[in-house]
């Protein structure tokens, strides 16, 4: 375990950033941007999650092995979602009669 102490100012700065991003994602959701809405919502969520991982969970100050473990977890999740999406997104590509 890394017993790295982070200065309190960093914690409060990240906390404020997360609050601002939460406000941003709520207000962005009320504007109709078509397909962009979900993209923006998820982009903000990814930024927030990254901030929590890097600073609250001390990933920024952790060894390379920890980075690897975390990345691999998300990579497998991405693979799973991608492969699942291959089905619904490609329906109707072939001109075959639907049951």
């Amino acid at each position: 375990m890394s017993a790295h102490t982070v200065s309190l100012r960093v914690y409060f700065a990240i906390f404020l950033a997360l609050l601002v991003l939460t406000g941003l994602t709520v207000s962005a959701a009320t504007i109709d941007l078509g397909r962009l809405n979900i993209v923006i919502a998820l982009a903000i969520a990814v930024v927030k999650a990254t901030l929590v991982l890097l600073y609250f969970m001390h990933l920024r100050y952790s060894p390379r092995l920890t980075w690897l473990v975390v990345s691999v977890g998300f990579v497998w999740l991405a693979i799973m979602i991608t492969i699942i999406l291959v089905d619904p997104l490609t329906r109707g590509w072939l001109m075959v009669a639907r049951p």
Partner: protein
Amino acid sequence: MWVFLVTEIMFFGGLFTAYVMYRTLYSHAFGDASNHLDLTMGAFNTVVLIGSSLTMALAVHAAQVGKRGAQVLFLLLTMLLGSVFLGVKVVEYAEKFHHGLVPGPYFTYHGPDAPQAQLFFSLYFAMTGLHALHMIIGLGILAVLVAQARAGRFGPAYSTPVELTGLYWHFVDIVWIFLFPLLYLIARHGGA
């Protein structure tokens, strides 16, 4: 601990995958159903949970520098905010039961695509329910930590339990960070 959290990513990831699949197939019905959720409560809970992550981080800091009083204070604050989150969730769930939005024989949904809406609410309850269960477990662990912190077990030489609980708590926070936009915000703009 990180390896355990990766298994948790896949645990929640299965539900997220199911959500992505059905939202792709029935995006319109999911949007309509999503608008039955209370945005105010969801946003309030998001802020509460981010606050609890801050207090947890401060508790870890207090453990690392060995301030006993601050440890107990911040651990209790984290528990308080976590309990507030769960309390709001209870109110939300009660509303769903009241309006007949709980999947099952008494599901009464006024609008088109009722079966697909039922699917949305099934996923809503599965995802938020699993998340709430994780928070309840977290509260139990925090209660043990409070007792140990009061006994002065944690200091610069030994703060691992607090740090690992912090990792777990922040992970649960991250799950909510994704649940909130996916469940509450997908169709607030009135269009689509």
